[in-house]
């Protein structure tokens, strides 16, 4: 599904602030796989996600999705085959527009937009169907402005928007990190059920070791711009959070300055 080859990017090249954010990253992600990406601050998690989404252009290497080289595709074009959720609950939606308007925008992600009315009975019907799955009552509030929704409700809406149309890849950028624990739990469970239901290939960046192991089928750990751990199957199933941290230290051979970040629940 996704093939990342020799991917590298350097920020502020040639200055005192030069930072090799990613270096020679190779990874193959199978169709339907749900990968969680962990690592301390500055490890390159978000950089990897932004490269996949097209918001950053790599210095070296290429990205293939379904054997198509998408490395040079701008964000809007890449969005026709992949969808995303952001950390900031305000980032993935238009606050001043209604729920149904937001959904109408998202439902046209993969199709050309024309001069016909965007909010058709078909769009409305699908919106109600998909919002009802959330069990948040949003299906009865289609005309409400999104600004009236809580952070958790917004992310739930953003999830529906991201998975409404056909999508080959779902990118989650710490999408529960800005929510309170209860809302984070809810959005994560909803995400998991939607991803499983539609079998979407998913890459989730997270700060939570627990979330990384509990959800998905594979976990990779980044450190200083490189993949230092890639666990799957039985090895992953029997892994505990404590073991994961120990493994990380052994692989890296250094103490991590902020254990706190790695151990956040």
């Amino acid at each position, binding site marked *: 599904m996704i093939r990342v080859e020799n991917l590298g990017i350097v920020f502020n090249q040639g200055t005192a602030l030069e930072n090799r954010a990613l270096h020679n990253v190779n990874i193959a992600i199978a169709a339907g796989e749900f990968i969680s990406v962990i690592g301390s601050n500055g490890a390159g998690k978000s950089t990897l996600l932004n490269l996949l989404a097209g918001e950053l252009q790599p210095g070296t290497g290429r990205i293939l999705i379904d054997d198509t080289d998408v490395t040079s595709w*701008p964000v*809007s074009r890449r*969005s026709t085959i992949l969808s995303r959720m952001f950390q900031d609950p305000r980032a993935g939606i238009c606050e001043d*527009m209604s729920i149904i308007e937001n959904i*109408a*925008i998202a439902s046209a992600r993969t199709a050309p*937009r024309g001069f*016909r009315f965007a909010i058709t009975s078909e769009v409305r019907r699908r919106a109600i169907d998909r919002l009802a799955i959330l069990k948040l009552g949003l299906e009865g509030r289609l005309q409400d402005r999104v600004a009236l929704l809580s952070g958790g409700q917004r992310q739930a809406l953003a999830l529906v*928007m991201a998975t409404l149309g056909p999508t080959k890849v779902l990118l989650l950028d710490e999408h529960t990190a800005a929510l309170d624990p209860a809302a984070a739990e809810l959005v994560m469970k909803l995400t998991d059920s939607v991803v499983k239901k539609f079998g979407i290939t998913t890459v989730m960046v997270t700060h939570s070791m627990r979330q990384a192991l509990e959800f998905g089928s594979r976990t990779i750990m980044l450190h200083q711009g490189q993949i230092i751990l890639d666990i799957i199957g039985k090895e992953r199933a029997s892994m505990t959070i404590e073991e994961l941290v120990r493994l990380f230290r052994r692989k890296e051979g250094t103490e991590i300055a902020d254990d706190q970040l790695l151990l956040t629940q």
Partner: protein
Amino acid sequence: MSLYAFTGAIETGLAFALVALGAYLTFKVLDFPDLTVEGSFPLGASVAAKLMVSGVDPWTATLIATFAGCLAGFATAFLNLKLRILHILAGILTAIALYSVNLRIMDRPNIGLINMTTVYTPIERLGVPSLYAPVVLLAIIVVIAKILIDLFLGTGVGLAMRAAGANPRMAQANGIRVGRMIVIGLGIANGLTAMSGALFAQMLGAADVSMGIGVIVVALAAVIGGTALMPSRLVPMLTLACVLGSILYRIALALALSTGAIGLTASDVNVVTAVLVAIALWLPVRRSAFVKRLGR
């Protein structure tokens, strides 16, 4: 204020309502402060006037002028998107260039249209007094333009344009080409502005190369003033607010200048406008501060 001055305020307000609707698209929907209008307004007037004195019928001339305005919008979009020039500066550059272009089009600084057949002539022939003919026709055109914009903003492209202005990152993540939306939005806005210039010149009886000065402030006064007086989140209400804002601005201006007591004259128009715009900008700030105080 005399009836004549009042009618004048209404018809000028209606003519500039088209500029206000365009400014709503650029300033409010796209979040793109477009100063191209300072050039595209006289461009519309120049093109229409030149064509009319060359024997082209007034409706065709007005339509071609509108199309010329679209091209001016595309020029600004090109400067902003391809040459990466700051939006506000891109508009200024196009407007400056258009000053010379307009002189070229007309071959002189102004063209008189007095006693020519204009778009208003058929209305007069229907028996409408010539004083009210422009009001009738402009009202019809403005209502049509307003409804078309309302409908447009509900289409797939229209929603995409609103998303592109409100949250470009989200728009791109939903497959929307933000640059394309800017091109379309600036095209429509400057087309409307040029149409306004063409209609205004025919009403005034002349096209003048300097008639674009201050158009942007007038448009802002209408959009900001209108939406401050009628706050709403609904597109049809907001476009209505822009149209009414444009008319109310002209009435307020006429009132301010006609009450001899304050001692204002026509030359004080710009300072009165600046004060009105400043008040309109301050109103929402004061209102939200007031709401906050109530909340405590």
